[in-house]
């Protein structure tokens, strides 16, 4: 008897689907009766298999990996800021070169003077932005995880030191372009850090 033509309906039959043709065959076929009985036993045993419990460390690892993501992205912020600042400085230098008269001493003066003058208003502009953001960040501070707050605080301390050192260098050498760039870089990084503090605190509050 060619029982294999019933292979698929045999499975359906085990799953509870009626098939009159197969049932007529089954009544007369010892082989199919044995298969049906065995399949039913296998299915019954399979449904009683225990559900193993994943160790708690799996969730701990998942949670740590997820927590790590914002920190990793966060670590790139100063580099991104530095890169954009480098582009700005390069652009300003190119503009200065393009608009400057050909004589070398005049070029030097053109670059040095606007940079020197621009540093003061830019500096003041940053101070205003930082003061506003600092207020917001202080208000969000309590909402942050202690570990996140620590990381942000340490980064801010590093940036504050860089700002202090750049300003000290500019106090003695106002035309020092490296010190100007360092100061702008540090101020921009501080703005980004404070912005991150505010964003993280807001997200945390929304989740509570």
């Amino acid at each position: 008897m060619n029982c294999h033509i019933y292979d698929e309906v045999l499975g359906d039959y085990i799953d509870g689907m009626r098939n009159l043709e197969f049932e007529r065959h089954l009544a007369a076929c010892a082989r199919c009766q044995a298969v049906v009985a065995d399949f039913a036993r296998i299915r019954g045993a399979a449904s009683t298999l225990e559900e193993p419990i994943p160790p708690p460390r799996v969730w701990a690892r998942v949670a740590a990996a997820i927590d790590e993501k914002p920190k990793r992205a966060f670590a790139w912020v100063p580099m991104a800021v530095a890169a954009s600042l480098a582009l700005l400085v390069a652009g300003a230098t190119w503009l200065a070169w393009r608009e400057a008269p050909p004589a070398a001493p005049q070029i030097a003066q053109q670059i040095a003077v606007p940079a020197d003058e621009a540093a003061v208003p830019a500096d003041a502009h940053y101070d205003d932005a930082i003061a506003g953001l600092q207020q917001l960040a202080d208000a969000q501070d309590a909402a942050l995880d202690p570990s996140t707050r620590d990381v942000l605080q340490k980064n801010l301390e590093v940036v504050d030191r860089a700002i202090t050192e750049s300003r000290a260098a500019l106090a003695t050498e106002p035309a020092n372009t490296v010190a100007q760039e360092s100061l702008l870089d540090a101020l921009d990084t501080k703005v980004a850090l404070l912005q991150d503090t505010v964003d993280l605190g807001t997200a945390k509050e929304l989740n509570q």
Partner: protein
Amino acid sequence: MRTADLELAARCRAGDADAFEELYRQHARRLYGLVLRMVGSPEEAEDLLQEVFLQAYRKLAGFRGESALGTWLYRLAMNLCLDHLRGRRAKMSRATESLDHEDAAEPVAPAPVVPPAISRMDLERAIEKLPAGSRAAFLLHDVEGFEHREIAEILGVTEGTSKSQVHKARMKLRTLLSR
């Protein structure tokens, strides 16, 4: 489509860490059982379960609710398991040229008779010996209780293939358990 799934997915996408933990608690246990039975090693199963949820975290933005969240997670898990087993088999093949192909015809006992009471241990051991494709279909159908329509979606095959794989698995288990 369950609204609860969409809401949970939306909360996860919005960065709600509690929602993601809820997703883990709802599905990790069943997924771990499946993954463990697919790969056989608790260490590898833990790594794969971790990867399932990290992938889910990254891909939740793409979850549009066409399937249940559980089915979607099972699909991620099965893809990872099958990739993992393919990689393992490729390594084994490189190391041992003479390995039989997993789909090689199994000598069929003339009239296998499964004992009236199948011990869980015997069944677990027999399941380990199934080829990956039919093991996946069998676990999803007979252990996890999915319908062939859902298995087809999880494994990316037709319903007919799902039925055929479950049939093959049962036939092979019948032979293995009657030895």
